[in-house]
């Protein structure tokens, strides 16, 4: 079902055997069968069997599973096929099966980029669930850590630290510097340089003294 992810998340290669398993089917004529088993290790209940299908080339041949998870795909002429296990919940790795005109079988990994590369796999086929399919996106939740780790917040916190804590440390160190700093602070705290928020608001709201506007603010809160 999901071959791309198999490359993104490198999953342990299940069966890497360099031995060619040659099983000659004693079928008459020129049709052969592919046999195998499907196993879901992570499932406790057996109900996955009912909605699992084994398909060849996307659905040209379909097999349903027997109660023990085994399957037989009948009536395939010689050729090369991609065998997949389909289940809405679990994901399986697909296998390519080559059947010669004499009925020799070979199972190998599916590789679309380099189709000629042969990495044989075990035959009769064994499919094991690799992981559960994830169809959904995680909803973003508001977390305090996310907020704090936000680069914007970090860039604001750092200058704050510099402004608030560094002067204190310097104060303790040197009285002259402290004086200098104080005079700077005074200049900073000069009323005329910093517009009074409440006064401004009071001005907008129709005049009045600062004490009045303060009471207004209280009401607002």
């Amino acid at each position: 079902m999901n071959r791309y992810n198999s490359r993104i998340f490198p999953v342990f290669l299940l069966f890497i055997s360099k031995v060619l398993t040659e099983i000659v089917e004693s079928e008459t004529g020129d049709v052969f069968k592919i046999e195998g088993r499907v196993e879901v290790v992570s499932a406790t209940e057996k109900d996955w069997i009912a909605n699992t299908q084994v398909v060849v080339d996307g659905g040209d041949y379909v097999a349903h599973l027997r109660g023990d998870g085994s399957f037989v795909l009948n009536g395939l002429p010689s050729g090369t096929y991609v065998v997949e296990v389909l289940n809405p919940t679990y994901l399986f790795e697909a296998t390519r099966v080559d059947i010669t005109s004499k009925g020799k079988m070979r199972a190998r990994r599916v590789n679309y980029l380099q189709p000629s590369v042969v990495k044989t796999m075990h035959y009769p086929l064994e499919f094991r669930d690799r992981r559960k399919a994830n169809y959904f996106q995680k909803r973003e939740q508001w977390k305090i850590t996310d907020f704090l780790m936000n680069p914007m917040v970090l860039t604001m916190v750092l200058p704050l630290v510099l402004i608030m804590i560094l002067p204190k440390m310097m104060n303790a160190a040197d009285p002259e510097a402290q004086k200098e700093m104080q005079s700077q602070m005074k200049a900073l705290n000069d009323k005329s340089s910093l517009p009074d928020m409440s006064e401004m608001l009071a001005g907008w709201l129709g005049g009045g003294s600062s004490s009045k506007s303060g009471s207004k603010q209280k009401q607002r809160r």
Partner: protein
Amino acid sequence: MATTGGCIFILCTFLSCFIYSYALYEDQVGSFDWRQQYIGRYKRAYWEQVEGTAGGKRLFVSSEKNVIASLNTANGKIVWRKVFEEGRRGEVDDLIYNGEILVSVLGGRRVAAWSPGSGNLLWEIFLDGSDKHSGVVKFVEESGLVVALTSEKVYAVQTRDGAQKWEVELSNSETVRYSKLQVHDGKVYVVGMTAGSEVKVISIGLDGAVLSTKPVLAGFLRKDTKCRIVEEKYLMCICWMSSSFHVLNLKSPQGFVATSSQDLGHDLTEQSRWVEQYTPSARGEVIQISKDRTVLVTVNDNGKVSVIKDLPKSAIAAVVSYEGKDYIVSLEQTGHEELTMNMYELGTSNQVSEANHKIHYMKHHGQPLQMTCLLAQRKDGKMAYKLALLSEDYAVQLVHKSGKIAWRRDEFLAYAVAVEMVDLPVSENQAKFEDEFGSHEDNVMTMFVKRVKTQLSQLQTFIVQQIHRLQGVKHHTVIEEGEDEDTEDDDLLRDEFSLHKIIVIVTSPGKIVGMKSINGHLLWQHFLPELGPFDRFGREKVLLHVQRTTAHFPNPPQCVVLGRNRASGRGHLFAFDPISGHSVSQMPAGGLHLPYNIQQAFLLGEWDEHFMKALIMLDDTFTVHTYPTSALSFVEKHRSSIYIYLADVDSSLLNGYRLVLSQNKLLVDNVWTVNLQNQRQNIKITNIVAKSAHEHIYSQGRVLGDRSVLYKYLNPNVVVVTTEGEEPATSQQKGYPVINVYVLDVITGHMIFHGNHRKAQGPLHIIHSENWVVYGYFNTKQRRHEMAVLEMYEGKNQSNATVFSSFTAPQQPLVMRQSFIFPLPMYTMTTTITEKGITTKDILVALKNGGVFTLPKAFLDPRRPLTPTQETQEEGTFPYIPELPVHTEGMINYNQTLYHVRGIHTSPTGLESTSLILCYGLDMFHTRIQPSKMFDVLKEDFEHWLIASVVLSMLVASFITQKLASRKALNRQWK
């Protein structure tokens, strides 16, 4: 350095936002999507049998759509369903049930046994031989065997495990058609028929020894003669030409005994048929003589046929056994929409009064076709029944208790061939609003009066709504219940963003339905038994067009369906209002049977004065017709700008025509011919794909990395034609399949592009939109599925930017192309459509693994560079990777597997970001998708409270700190 870093960062975010461009949140499941699962037209049906109880809790069915399923008879839901391969291999030829096991024959040679409870496969065997005839299976209860007949052999296998006991080869299987199998009295009888000459009866012992082979002369036998085994030991054929029944005793096949049907008081017609019986009855067989006459016949010991029960007026009947007695159940059409059910005890001809009921049977189901009945004892000792009834439109209804319909399954929806989504009408108020601003001729005074009037009426409705709200909540929970369809009539108004629509679906049995997109419930239905699909490149096709949308109040919207008449093969047309479902005036109830064959039909791009787009049809005498016929003069007036093209599939010729007026008839005149034939390769046209008429193109060009604009080649008259053929083998080389892709202007016949893929084969899946074409094919050399993209550009300058004309078409466009590996096989694909075309496009691919996958178009971009440079990064193209990414997060139908998808329909909504889709096939799935995420509406999880509280607390904090600061300053002053 910094800019490169920034670019990479932007690119990464861009990529990641594309990769997860569409994924649902888990809590959104089912909130705006729904899936409906179907089975198809039933072929066999069995009631569940449980030892010691009445059973009947399940109904096991096999269908024409290669499905075996178990239905819950209480509510009609599917308990389990097995879907097999499309085509001959997956066809369910026969299904038998003995109370413990279900045995089926698939594709003529696969015999499989299923557990009725869970639907699990018990065993499957594969038989030799060809699959040209239907397989038959029968139980041999006394020896625990199943006998199976293929076109060449008879097999006996153990019912328990499928182990083969014996096989018998049948002689002359190339000429004799072995199609009947019967087990009777410890012997297996096989009947082979040769049309026009003889019938061969082979009897085989249960140990596999052939006891006798007897040919019997049967001169009356034709290919379509309906024969069946009656009462387990007679072969009986209905021969309507000689109006007689022919009976052969299988136990001693001496010769056919003919009984004239006139002797029995009936005339056979071509429509005379056996009424399908699922449970073998010991007594009698039901024959439908004509549409409203059914008889129950039996065979006497001398081989003569006699009538047990004559049921005049009866549409359909079935024999049921219950507690050792046989009953016949019949249905009669007694009223306009009413069937009457009668039940008689056989032999005594007593009518059973408990089962005499009237059934409400809707007209739009057509004739009843088949039924199966189950009788049981109720607790109070009375007789209870369940009746599953299949109608002509493939709907199945379950009738129980006093003729009530317990449930209905709309199996015709598994046969959808054309889909269209129509906007719901606006409310009366909004319509007035449209009216007010729609006209430009009013003077100031009238406009002012209108404004006041509208506002008054708005106020009035507002007050009325408030009163209603105070009086109590009106049905909002009813919709959740789902079953009640009548309570929602005032829901048929457009919602704020036009997200809810009416889905009009045309199906191949001839049923046309209107469905609410919000929950998939049917609003209205029409049944046109004569309407059949056209055959287009081997696929079923019915044309469905919206002639007038809902936007033209007070003119009602109108849709038109054009198909092929089943009987005559000529055109068959039906026009209706898609909202109410009413047919337009002067439209016959069964549709309009046109007196000509349709060669080509399309909707004109222009409105007439009633905002109606005319349907133009070209018949096989090259005469142009329109629907409505009054539009002909309009078409005549605009004939200079109308061109028609035709494709001959077999000769691979494309012809272009213009309209000419001669002797007051609108005819066509050949303008151009393009020959795509290649005799050596035996090429056939397989697809012709034009652009969607609903499409809006927002951006005329594409901004490149150097800030220049590459203009798109936006020729609306372009179609994509594909041909497929086979390069024959030579002495040096094996033969290989070939695909050709042509892009041509159908007004002038100008060939814009021709591409060729060797060692590639179909089925081709094509999307044609804006200035690009995407197609999927199978690469036979590398044995993988691939997708290719073509994009056409005019270059850095734009010619005829305002109005496009094919006659002054720009120079040969730049065609860029690239191909990619798409790792999964697919059923079909399409692209999203949005209101204004601003949103990026997604490719929707219905995969054969059951998923519907969204792939952003940006991945299928021929400008993806092999080595990324700063300029390409600036442009925002991803580096070329041969494999297209497929991941489960992109499956819009999450775990809701869809089988045998035949098409995906996409439709824009009032929201630019959102597009509605409907996938149809065996299952139906509807959802809405946002290719570029929901950029025009706040997300549902937008945290209003958090933001409001943060702003408020900031305000509060600023005042408090300001107070504190001023106090501190004051204190400092006092020092």
